[in-house]
């Protein structure tokens, strides 16, 4: 067995801590940590899915929070009609997210650079405004989900610990999936096109199609995270797809380190912890948060991943 690097150790320790957290909670009775960790894990899934396009593909999507919203409403709207079957919820979340990513991707991926950033943002705002103006599902005020998704008798999501483990196992599964994608021929084409798209095209790859598929996968995964989020928060509103939410997701990815498998998980973790700690002791905590964000961009290229000894990729 090869010796572990610092990064390897941190990865291992974080995963072990997340896996054992419910035991700690049941011993100490501090339910609060379970709630915090569930949120952390769900947002980590979203950040990991964003990293697939942002990190590996250099497609800076500023509208990724839309998929969180779509996923959450895929739980909320059926529940509104008293359909609680979780398989239907997850199916709608992934299906609609993938369809939305496909349709918008057809337009977005024709553009480059800053136009891509802005058009992805605009499409997410389109979803935002659509939900704001649909009065039937609460409009601005949002929707309360009273019953969590039902998956037969074996998995009871009403139990917070079960929900947590479902999220955690999902995170592990999605990390494995992304690892397989990145190291596949498909992933190589995506990363090749990040460095030099013209070269990949002259090698005969239709990079547009590869990027589109990648974009759809990332959207579908984030839609899944959204479905988990809907179950977790039990209150959903269009506010969760506001463009500032998408900005936070990007920050998690960059904070952790782009185009590394585990970086976004660390980024989401640090983000959630900082948010929790700072908001606890100062009303104006967002000031510190904003300054921290600027400092990270100015001085800490490569994020947590590079602090742990990995060279940032250019």
């Amino acid at each position, binding site marked *: 067995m090869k010796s572990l690097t610092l990064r390897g150790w941190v990865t291992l320790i974080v995963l072990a801590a997340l896996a054992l957290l419910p035991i700690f909670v049941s011993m100490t009775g501090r339910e609060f940590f379970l709630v915090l960790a569930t949120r952390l894990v769900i947002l980590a899934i979203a950040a990991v899915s964003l990293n697939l396009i942002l990190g590996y593909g250099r497609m800076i999507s500023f509208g990724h929070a839309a998929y969180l919203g779509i996923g959450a409403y895929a739980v909320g709207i059926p529940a509104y009609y008293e359909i609680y079957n979780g398989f239907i919820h997850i199916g709608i979340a992934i299906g609609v997210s993938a369809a939305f990513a496909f349709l918008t991707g057809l337009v977005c991926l024709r553009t480059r650079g800053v136009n891509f950033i*802005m058009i992805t943002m605009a499409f997410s705002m*389109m979803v935002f405004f*659509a939900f704001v103006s649909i009065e039937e599902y609460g409009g601005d005020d949002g929707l309360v989900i009273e019953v969590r998704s039902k998956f037969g008798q074996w998995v009871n999501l009403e139990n917070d610990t079960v929900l947590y483990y479902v999220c955690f196992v999902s995170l592990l599964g999605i990390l494995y999936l992304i690892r397989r994608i990145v190291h596949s021929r498909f992933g190589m084409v995506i990363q090749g096109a990040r460095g030099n798209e013209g070269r990949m095209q002259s090698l005969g790859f239709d990079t547009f199609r590869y990027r589109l598929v990648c974009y759809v996968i990332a959207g579908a995964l984030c839609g899944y995270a959204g479905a988990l989020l809907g179950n977790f928060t039990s209150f959903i509103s269009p506010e969760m797809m506001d463009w500032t939410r998408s900005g936070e997701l*990007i*920050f998690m990815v960059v904070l952790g380190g782009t185009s590394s498998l585990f970086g976004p998980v660390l980024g989401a973790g640090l983000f959630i912890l900082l948010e929790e700690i700072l908001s606890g002791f100062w009303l104006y905590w967002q000031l510190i948060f*904003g300054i*921290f964000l600027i400092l990270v961009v100015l001085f800490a290229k490569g994020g947590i991943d590079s602090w742990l000894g990995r060279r940032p990729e250019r």
Partner: protein
Amino acid sequence: MDWTLLIVQLLNGLQLGILLFLLASGLTLIFGIMDFVNLAHGSLYMVGAFFCATLTQWLDSFWLGLLLALPATAVVGVLVELIVVRHLYERDHLDHVLATFGLILVFDTLTQMIWGPDGQVIPLPAWLDGQVSLGDAIEVPTYRVAIILTGLAVAFGLFILVTRTRLGMQIRAGASNRKMVSALGVNIGLLFSIVFVIGAVLAGLAGMMIAPITEASIGMGNQIIIVAFVVIVIGGIGSIKGAFIAAILVGSIDIMGRSYLDVLFKMFMSTQNAETSAPAVSAMLIYILMAVILAVRPSGLFGPRGR
């Protein structure tokens, strides 16, 4: 058909378009010349509105407040450029987006610390507060007409600045080839600062002009900035002419959609369906417009090819 309402709505669309142009012209110049994505542009819009509100309340005069708030906003623009933005020109777009997103958090929170969570009202002088009649039986608020005229004047001034002056020549040259301009001896750092501050003042002015109608509130720039981005993407990044045409187009379509889409929908669907779907579609209308335009011309109406 109610013609009075139609004309009032057209004017409202024009007014929104003018405000969007003030925001978008700064954004498009900053992007065109420095290749810099500034999400915090909306914060300067907010800062301008708050400065104007406080100065107006202190001095008891909207005009003095407006006149003094402009240089105050310029100072904030200079500080932002000096402390943060200047160090980011050489970085990639992702860094621009993140750092300016951080700036938004800083500005929103600072504003809340200084002015508190509530909005600030700006009282208008009496002669601006009334109605003005256009032709027979059509009355529109005087202040809205004032906004439109001021905006058109600023747009004209900006056009002269960019096309007829030495600074404008340098700006246009900088937009097409930065390295060449600095090789020819133009102080590119100074040029960047000037352009950034011009953009900041224009955004601040837009905020000051809208605040008497909507009042100055925390985060007021965060929604309209997205629409301003839509404008510059439609118009083609870096083009003032494109920004102007797209701003008027987007402003009019947005207002018209909100007022008349349900009428249009009722022609071919049931009243109830029309009334539920029209608000949703009208809110999405400008984004649909942008998607269609980008699908046909990926670099916008007047954008440079191959950026």
